[in-house]
């Protein structure tokens, strides 16, 4: 069994709205294993994204612990969390969030140069990764508003993995894409995972969830279901879908 890379103990996250406390995550114990493609699912408002932000150091938990490779990060200041993230985490957002005033290549390098010094190797690596996702040299000179949604998301993925993060977090990465673009993006995630990348992804889409090796189902602030699958492509896709559908049905999805 693979070792644990990310763990939570009694994790709680609450929001205060007009004086009323809303407990989104409640005493959650979770273990994310190295090399897994973990998919977090749940109904709308179940706290999927909240959990993702708490796990990734984007947000601080209200109570409990978040242990990244046995290092507690819940007590970090915002700047300490930023430094932690730059060395350990990659992010792919639903809205892509490319920097509008920077070219494709610069967007990728902006993520890289905060971690490592510039070098021809780094630039070549960025270009290679972009090429692997189907973007050519001309595309690399384009600004975000000149790209399609799928192209922009591919840039987002390259930007997220350029620093070889220990975990790649993705928040509904295909949420704003059409089916063709979604498939392209998911194929990239699958390839990355095959190369050993740990991934934690939030989605409510079955096709996206199928790419995972472990599906966690979140309800009322806690994990109520944990389903494991072989890596994508190693089993029959129809059978894989049926089993996952059955699991999700059981969870009340």
């Amino acid at each position, binding site marked *: 069994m693979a070792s644990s890379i990310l763990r939570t103990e009694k994790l709680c996250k609450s929001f205060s709205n007009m004086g009323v406390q809303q407990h989104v995550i409640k005493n959650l114990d979770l273990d994310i294993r190295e090399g897994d493609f973990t998919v977090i699912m749940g109904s709308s408002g179940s706290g999927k*994204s909240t959990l993702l932000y708490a796990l990734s150091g984007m947000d601080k938990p209200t109570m409990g612990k978040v242990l990244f490779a046995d290092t507690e990060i819940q007590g970090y200041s915002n*700047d300490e969390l*930023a*430094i932690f993230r730059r060395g350990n985490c990659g*992010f792919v957002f639903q809205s892509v969030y490319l920097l*509008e005033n920077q070219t494709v290549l610069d967007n990728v390098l902006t993520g890289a*140069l905060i971690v490592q010094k510039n070098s021809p190797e780094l630039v070549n690596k960025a270009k290679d990764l972009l090429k692997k996702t189907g973007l050519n040299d001309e595309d690399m000179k384009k600004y975000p508003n000149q790209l399609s949604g799928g192209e922009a998301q591919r840039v987002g993925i390259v930007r997220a993995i350029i620093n070889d993060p220990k975990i790649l977090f993705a928040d509904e990465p295909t949420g704003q894409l059409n089916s063709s673009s979604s498939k392209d993006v998911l194929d990239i995630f699958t390839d990355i995972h095959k190369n050993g990348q740990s991934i934690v992804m939030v989605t409510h889409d079955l096709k996206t969830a199928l790419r995972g090796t472990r599906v966690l189902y979140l309800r009322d602030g806690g994990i109520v279901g944990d389903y494991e699958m072989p890596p994508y492509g190693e089993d029959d896709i129809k059978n894989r879908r049926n089993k996952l559908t059955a699991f999700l049905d059981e969870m009340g999805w």
Partner: protein
Amino acid sequence: MKILRLSLFNLKKNKREAAAVAFLTMVTVFMLSIFFANGSKLKRAFDESFAASGSINQIVIFKDSFYHDEFRRILESDYKTDRLTENPFIFAGATDVRYESGEEVSFNFLFATERTERRIENFLKTDAMSDEELKSVSHPIWMPVNFNITKGLRVGETFTIIKSGRDYPFTIAGFYDTGLDSSDGYGFKCILSDEDYDLFSMLFSSGSAFSYNCVGLCFDAYDDFNFDEFIEKCSESSSENLTSGTVNLSYEGEKNNETVFADMFLNMTAFLSLITMISALFMIRHKISNDIEDQMQQIGVLEALGYRAHEISLSYLYEYMISGGLGCILGALAACLSTPLMNTFDETMLGRTVTGNTEVIKMILTALAIFIIVIMFALIKARTVKKYPPVVALRRGILTHHFGRNVLPLENTKGNINLRLAMKSLFSELRSCIGVTVCIIAAGITILFSTVSFDFFKDGANGLMAMMGTDDVMMITLMSGVDPENIRDEILKMPDVRKAIVTYDLTEIGVKGSDFSGTVQVYEDYKDAESITPAFGRYPEHDNEIMISYRRSKIENLSLGDSIVLERAGLEKSYMITGIVSSIMNSGSSLYLTSDGYRRIDLNARPNRINVYLKEGVGYDEFEDKLTAKFGLSAKDAAANQTVGGSMEDKIRAAADEKIAAMLSQYGVTSVEYAVRIGDELITGNSRSFVIKETATWEGMAKTQLVPIAGTFKKFTVVAAILISVIVGVILSIIAASNVRRQRHSLGIMKGLGYSSKDLMTQMAVRIMPVIIVSLLIASFGALWLNKFFWLAVIGAIARTSIKAIVITDIVLVIFCYVVTYLGAGRIKKISVNELMTE
């Protein structure tokens, strides 16, 4: 109404920016109100004070030896006059005095009796001893109220006039309002008892160029009176050159003299308010641009809902109507409340009693004008909303999207990524920096000018001494027959001396065709001069070359290359002007010649003076004691010295020396020998025992005329530098905060990528640094230029500019701007990545 609610919402949301706009408009209105209200009040206060004194408006003073009754006849026949009287005065130039506090200063005085005073004005006493008190005073003096207001002297205090080393203590019997001769620049008319006047009349009758008995023609002049023309007629009538030894005291001259510095301060206040206003307008422009960009989608939604572009524009307008309006009201209110303070300022500047009402109308009009300017400016910028129809606005202003060249691509990054990203951001938005550049240049010039001026004035009159067009030296005039080279060599051996040069005593010399005679300063080689620097042109090098003061060049419309003719003892020589120099000593009358050049106009001239430059930290009094120890008392000091004790021979020799010294120093005697027989004993002596005729420095006179200016200007520069720094600080922090809000999205993404708040704040601060540095470089040259021409324009002199002070100020300003922008960008800390992703 709905639009107003939107404005109120924006105001509430951006309280800091709203407060900054209110602050800047408040400062602008406050300073402009003071400028407009006080400018006219100052002139009016002078007029009122002058009218209250009942003074005649013109006094023409002649040295008594030059005066002829014919002059009065010319005046009566050729000009319309009223209340014409002919009165005796004593002119006492550069006379040392001591206050009761022990402070010693120098003034020009015009002494008169009460009888004379009552013939030329009302002798209106503002504060005086009672008749009973006056009876017990043996030497009363009545002084212009200026002494009470600006020097803090009080009735009953002792005021000592020092003449030829002797003290003449007076008791201040009272102060009075006077029309003419009541300023540091011209001098002060003081009233003495008849007995004291007679004594002074003898004391000041030496025939010196600076102190003499005189006759004043006092009258009310009309427009047809022309002083130069009148003196020319008098000269023709008497066949004497009257260019020296005549003084013109007039209403206009007095008014200009007393208000010149107040005007200067008020003009600077207006200049500061202009900078503040530019800054405020720039900030409003920048903020509206950022707000529109930030609220683009909201604008699109409102347009989609049917709001018209101009209605949305109004929401921005209302915002500035409220914040700017509040600032205008507060500024006008502050100006009203500061009226007593400004009256005190006016009194100090004029040296006259000032009572004035608050100029409410002018203040309201100023506030209204600024309010309209702010509104107009805001409206023009807010109207850019119409550039964004709903579709464009909903797409967050597609027009602003980037399609251009990639400036500073990151693949070429060398070194720090934060620095690279900051520069990339700067170069991609260069246009938005124009406003900041203008603001920083204007503010930078003011701060740098203030700092340089402060550095200049920080040691009181020392800085101004450098503007006087003469070196700060001890002038040692030697007895005739003494070898100056030999004495110079002896003086150079003294440890306190760093330099000593042989030159000629100051001589007053006529300028043909001009009533503005000059005091000649002579240098063998002008490389020896330390504080005489040509503002234009160069030093004289040959015997037919001359350098003149800036003031003379303006008065007589002379330029480089022109010629002037000097006159002395019937001899006339022409000189070509090679340089124009900053010089305020002797009202800028100085003429600068080489030794050879001087000998052309004074064939008998022999060097008789040594200018001694002392080492840093050595005081003149301290050095004079050492000089006396080495060469004995000067003739002047000996004349003033009381007879010492000792044997009969000692007493006789001391008494003889005293008499000889008085003859040498006061009556132009060049050699004396004596023999005194007491019984069989013969005591002999001669004047050769004196080496030094007299010593003098510019220190006393300079202190008197310049210290008050230096003090006031020093305070003003500190206030100006602090005020403008605060404004720069406010603007930069608000710009930073506004930029953070506009770039919230990008900054959130950067945070998500692992950039810390500190990284992003650093980028924000570093980004503006090239603009600040370039602006300050431009401002430094601007300040250098301003420093030169400001003082030339105000007092006809060039201020010393400390490059060191400029460099230090520039460095401090760069650090200040960095810190302020960094802290102003602190809102970055509040940007939550989590919040961004759940938008």
